């Protein structure tokens, strides 16, 4: 049995199989103050899968991603990426933050933002060459933003900014992509453009993990879901883990029962 088959049949992998997974989180607890935002969470993301992280506002989705990326230090627990500690696997990770805390008046153009995806590769003293610019332009083309390369970043609409951040992640040329609400505040056309890019990544054997809020599109876009509300509620394939029961458990009284039934039963 391969790791993916194991994962789909069990929902979770055993610890010793974590090495095969793209991402394995073990008993992770993250806290900003006295109250944990994420409590004792286990998560396993098989290679080549596309996982939606779902949960109500404040459920700890962004926190979980940031802890997995090593942006914030967890109180307890650990994360491994392709069987290695995150610090050793940086080159294989790309990240699109929740849009965002950046300063939109920052003196930087669209192409410069995408080039930031290459800084890690360039190192401290490496020279930025023409080939790097070509690569950044290619990434902009993949999200249809090549005509905006010279615009100041603040002169874009929200959806266009989101595409640029996706292009920056593409420039990182990674194997595992983390996206925090890539579809928030974008119109249908941009949503389609973004999902095409993500599905293209999966077709190339990459792994995608995205925080997602629109329950109605989960079955179309993703093959796995991870439901969280501070603790893990459910994890597995869409059929297994995306059910009225699990949603009810994750969202509590916050979704009307009818709504729950519709989205999940419609799968």
């Amino acid at each position: 049995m391969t790791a993916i088959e194991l994962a789909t049949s069990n929902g979770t992998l055993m610890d010793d199989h974590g090495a095969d997974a793209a991402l394995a989180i073990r008993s992770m607890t993250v806290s900003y103050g006295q109250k944990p935002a994420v409590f004792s969470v286990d998560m396993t993301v098989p290679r080549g899968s596309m996982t939606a992280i779902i949960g109500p506002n404040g459920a700890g989705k962004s926190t979980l991603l940031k802890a997995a990326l090593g942006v914030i230090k967890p109180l307890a627990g650990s994360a491994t990426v392709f069987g290695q500690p995150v610090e050793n696997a940086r080159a294989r990770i790309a990240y699109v933050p929740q849009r965002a805390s950046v300063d939109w008046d920052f003196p930087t153009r669209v192409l410069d933002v995408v080039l930031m995806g290459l800084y890690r590769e360039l190192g401290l003293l490496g020279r930025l060459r023409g080939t790097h610019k070509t690569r950044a332009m290619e990434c902009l083309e993949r999200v249809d933003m090549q005509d905006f390369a010279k615009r100041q970043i603040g002169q874009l609409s929200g959806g266009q900014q989101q595409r640029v951040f996706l292009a920056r992640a593409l420039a990182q040329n990674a194997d595992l992509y983390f996206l925090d609400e890539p579809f928030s505040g974008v119109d249908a056309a941009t949503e389609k453009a973004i999902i095409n890019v993500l599905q293209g990544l999966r077709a190339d054997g990459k792994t995608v993990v995205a925080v997602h809020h629109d329950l109605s599109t989960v079955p179309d876009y993703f093959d796995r879901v991870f439901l969280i509300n501070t603790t893990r509620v459910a994890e597995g394939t869409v059929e297994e883990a995306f059910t009225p029961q699990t949603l009810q458990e994750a969202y509590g009284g916050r979704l009307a029962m009818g709504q729950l039934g519709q989205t999940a039963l419609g799968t």
Partner: protein
Amino acid sequence: MLWQALTLQLGYNATLVTLGATLLGVAAGVTGTFLFLRKRALVSDAISHATLPGVGLAFILMVAMGGDGRSLLGLMLGSAASAWIGLLCISALTRRTRLAEDAAIGAVLSVFFGIGIVFLTFIQTMSEGRQAGLEGFLLGSTAGMLYSDAVIIAVGGATVLLAVTAFRRPLSAVAFDPEFAASSGLNVPRLDLIMMGLVMAITVVGLKIVGLILIVALLIIPPVTARFWSERVTGVLWVAGIFGGVSGYLGAALSAIAPALPTGPVIVLVSFAMFALSLLFAPARGVLAAVLKHLSFQRRVHVRQGLLALAQGQPIYEKLTLRLLRRAGLVRADGVATSDGKARAAKALRDETRWQMARSREEFALAATFYDGLTEIETVLTGDQINELDRLIGAPKGVRP
């Protein structure tokens, strides 16, 4: 005299001091750019005020050990040590208490400065203290500067400049998007510390020339000024370096001919003049450029709307529109379109119809983002695409290509 000062003909020492100040200005402008982009400008003010107790203590110690007490290197080391302690206090106050950073900055700045003034007052009572000239560290002075002092300043400035240049990419990545920077493996707290260390180095090196009260100006005014000129970090860095260098150069040269004048305020006035000029006249983001751009845009909008109204046979009520159309020879004094006006109006309407069609079709979605009511569609689409649009528009209501 002024000319001689500006062309470095006032003797070896004055020349060296001027060159040192220029280098310091360049380094301060470049370092300050990252401080400004990271929105930590005020921390540098706290750092500089926190140097004062160190200056006083270093003097007292050196005298107590039988030394001169005025050795610039010794005073610099002392000031660096106390600035570092000030920095640690700020970071401890913000991390361990619920105090916001601005409150911590205010507290550290005033307490350290107060302690420093107490030391200076005490030094005044020492027999060695009267000629110490430590007041020069408040507002800066180049008078009586030694050859070795100038060399220390020049070397210090150059070293900081090299270090900032090496770290420019990670520093700007952290300033723009710290979370992404951390996710790609940059150590954000350490880079912040490096930045603060470099700012501290600039402060300590510039203490003698600019003085601790005003060094913040040399760090912050050049990047703020440069921001008017460029939309890119590289551009801002270059312009800030140049402006900082000019400020340092002019400040030192001017105070060489008027030794009574403290150097710090002269440098600040020079950089303020450049700031004011940039605010008004910079082509990219200056006030005047913005007003002109706005006026020209407003005119084009009025003409365009007037033409569309003409083409659709609607009356034009706005006086500005009529005046602009008349001035361009598109309508006669009585408001009737000239033949020129009719042709332009038909063209404008056709453009608008094509745009509307392009904006409603998905295959033109990219081009549609260029719609602003003014751009001619020919500048965005190819002939084939326009033919396709015309086909989609179908039997036109009175507009033919």
